[in-house]
């Protein structure tokens, strides 16, 4: 015999309350006989049994609200002995037939917020002060959208003011700006309320008013051009030089481990790690990342690391690894490979040629241990990298052998001084000691 359960009496009925039992234990009932009165929120309805038999135990009290499908009473076949006690074998045998609620769409699990690289890397900047927060709120500026240009990336009042007057940009214009390497902050919008449209971006891409035009008519591989540039550099730029030795042990072992899982084509070389470290350091110390123009320092809109590459016929180009501070190390490696390849086959873009905000010259492959290069005007810094050598080195008071590299900085003394330069190299060193964060 099966239990007498709370029936479904309609599409919108989930539960009901017994108002009154019409039978008692031991009553003989025929199929169709009313068993109880149930209140379903719409009305009181008699519910019937679909089996003939004898009423066993009443399991639900009047006044109790139960789900559809809940056993209300046990039923016995004629002649079957009723259970001795309410909590009986019969009851234990039959698990309560709970009505399975209609399948609901499982709430899509909210993916955990992936911490953005920028946020992780910029964990350092101090929080904006309350007066500044107030100022931002008054101007309707969302501080989360503002990049700070103060020390350690602190948001300044000027940053907030600039953000308040940021023009709107159409989706297409924004995409175009990205593709053409145009800094939207420098674009004047001609749409309604100064909205930046596609044609404004195109105009800016051709004009590039902020950065003084660098001669790009002929490729820089021309010796005469290089001669003129280098002469000018030495004539105009008061160079200072600082250098340091960096213990590359941690980087080299980390690369060995990480390269184990990479295909040959994907292996990361130490040079890439060095470039990455330079880029991150340049972001932290923007006074070395930009241009000396008409007597003032103009910070670069982003970190574009010029990479000195020797090309055919003994010539040299130093195209930019653009947005190097935003490229994860594997990505930067690919970009570097690609850049070198295209430099050697003469397929660099205008942006790559025009954009470097500081330059790195790595002559380690040529065997020299140290290089003090000539700054490429209008930049204000040049980093030199020598050969990776194994040398005796003191580690925790003991003598060991470590892979070392000499890093140098040629700095424009108009823009910075030795103190800054030294800090810059120290920053690079520090970054290289934590390669997993590169």
């Amino acid at each position, binding site marked *: 015999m099966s239990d007498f*359960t709370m029936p479904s009496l*309609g599409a*919108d*009925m989930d539960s009901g309350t017994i108002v009154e039992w019409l039978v008692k234990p031991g009553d003989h009932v025929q199929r169709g006989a009313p068993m109880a009165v149930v209140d379903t929120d*719409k009305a009181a*309805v008699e519910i019937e049994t*679909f089996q003939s038999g004898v009423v066993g135990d009443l399991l639900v009290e009047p006044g109790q609200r139960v789900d559809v*499908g809940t056993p209300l009473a046990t039923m016995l076949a004629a002649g079957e002995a009723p259970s001795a006690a309410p909590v009986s074998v019969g009851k234990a045998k039959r698990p309560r037939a709970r009505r399975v609620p209609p399948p609901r769409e499982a709430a899509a699990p909210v993916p955990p917020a992936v911490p953005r690289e920028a946020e992780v890397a910029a964990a350092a900047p101090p929080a904006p002060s309350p007066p500044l927060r107030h100022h931002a709120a008054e101007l309707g500026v969302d501080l989360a959208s503002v990049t700070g240009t103060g020390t350690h990336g602190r948001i300044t009042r000027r940053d907030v003011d600039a953000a308040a007057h940021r023009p709107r940009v159409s989706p297409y214009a924004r995409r175009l700006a990205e593709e053409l390497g145009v800094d939207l902050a420098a674009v004047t919008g001609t749409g309604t309320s100064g909205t930046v449209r596609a044609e404004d971006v195109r105009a800016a891409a051709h004009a590039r008013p902020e950065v003084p035009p660098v001669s790009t008519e002929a490729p820089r591989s021309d010796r005469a051009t290089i001669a003129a540039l280098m002469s000018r550099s030495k004539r105009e730029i008061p160079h200072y030089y600082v250098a340091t030795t960096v213990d590359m042990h941690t980087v080299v072992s980390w690369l060995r481990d990480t390269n184990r899982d990479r295909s040959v084509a994907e292996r990361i070389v130490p040079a890439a790690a060095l470039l990455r470290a330079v880029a991150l350091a340049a972001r932290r110390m923007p006074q070395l990342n930009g241009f000396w123009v008409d007597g003032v320092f103009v910070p670069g809109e982003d970190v574009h690391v010029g990479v000195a590459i020797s090309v055919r016929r003994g010539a040299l180009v130093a195209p930019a690894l653009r947005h190097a501070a935003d490229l994860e190390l594997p990505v930067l490696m690919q970009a570097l490979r690609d850049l070198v390849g295209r430099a050697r086959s003469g397929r660099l873009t205008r942006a790559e040629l025009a954009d470097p905000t500081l330059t790195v010259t790595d002559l380690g492959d040529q065997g020299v241990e140290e290089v003090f290069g000539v700054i490429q005007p209008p930049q204000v810094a040049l980093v030199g990298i020598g050969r990776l050598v194994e040398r005796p080195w003191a580690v925790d008071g003991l003598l060991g052998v470590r892979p070392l590299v000499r890093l140098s900085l040629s700095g424009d003394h108009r823009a910075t001084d030795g103190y800054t330069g030294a800090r810059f190299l120290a920053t690079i060193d520090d970054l290289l000691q934590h390669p997993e964060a590169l």
Partner: protein
Amino acid sequence: MSRRRTSATGTTGTGAMPTQHRFELLRQMTRIRLFEERCVELYSATKIRGFLHVGIGEEAVATGVLTVLTAEDSIVSTYREHGHALVRGLSMDSVMAEMFGKVTGCSRGRGGSMHLFDVGHRFYGGNAIVGGGIPMAVGIALADRMRHQTSVTACFFGDGAYAEGEFHESANLAALWRLPLLFCCENNLYAMGTAIEHEQAETDLALRAASYGMASWSVDGMDVAAVEEATRHAVERIRAGDGPCFLELRTYRFRAHSMYDPELYRDKAEVGHWRERDPLELLTAAMRADGELDEDAFEAMTAEARAEVDRAVDTAEQAPFEPVEDLTRFVYSEAVGPGPTRAGEEGAGS
């Protein structure tokens, strides 16, 4: 056009009806009765969902009318159409599976209780809109007429639908164009919870139908033989080209309008009174009175019908659901898509 009444005598006494045929009518009504009762149980156990309208008490209408129709005739019915579907020949398995929402159901589980379709049997639903199927039935009859066929379209609807404009427009149009349409009004005295005297200014529905210019009868819908006899008269006229006919089949549903209905609008005494005219009991009583009921055969037949229901339930339980990936299938027909003519699609005569 005159209106004839077949008086509800309470006896089935058409001696002309062969015993075997009467037994067959009884068998069909029994199948319907047992199927519907089982559906009530299954609904209470949440196996069947949505709305469920059973035709317990009205079995004689579906059985009596459909026994007269042939495979070339068409049927359009309402949401209380399980009996019609079963008598028409849809397999009980496919109907039960449809109630369970399984892909093996006659409508792939898409329709449920109210939307049973089987084009192969010319059973065009199942319609949840009161009166919604009537104009479609007019169209099917129109197509038959235009192709000079002698098929009949039987359209079932209730006394509630009789108030809908769609019925009146259709009755007028069918009579005007002399279409081969049999209007079968199952007057069970209630439009859901509203008694007919609160729905219709004039409750003699057959009388009113005659005013559209078609032959119209009022029939004792609890007497399957009377229903069959009236249907034969009507169908004969329709096939002869006389235009549509109207049958008011006076019947009663013993259970509520649908599964959830506390029946506050009618009293139990009335239900009890009509239960005394249970169509199955009327027929068995008449057959016994005529000495024509083989009790063993009757018992066996009932057991077999019960077994058929059990098998249908088991089969439905095992059957699969339609894959969710098929959700958007059949929004449009699958055979062809939009576009210019294909060779195979040219009409006859092009």
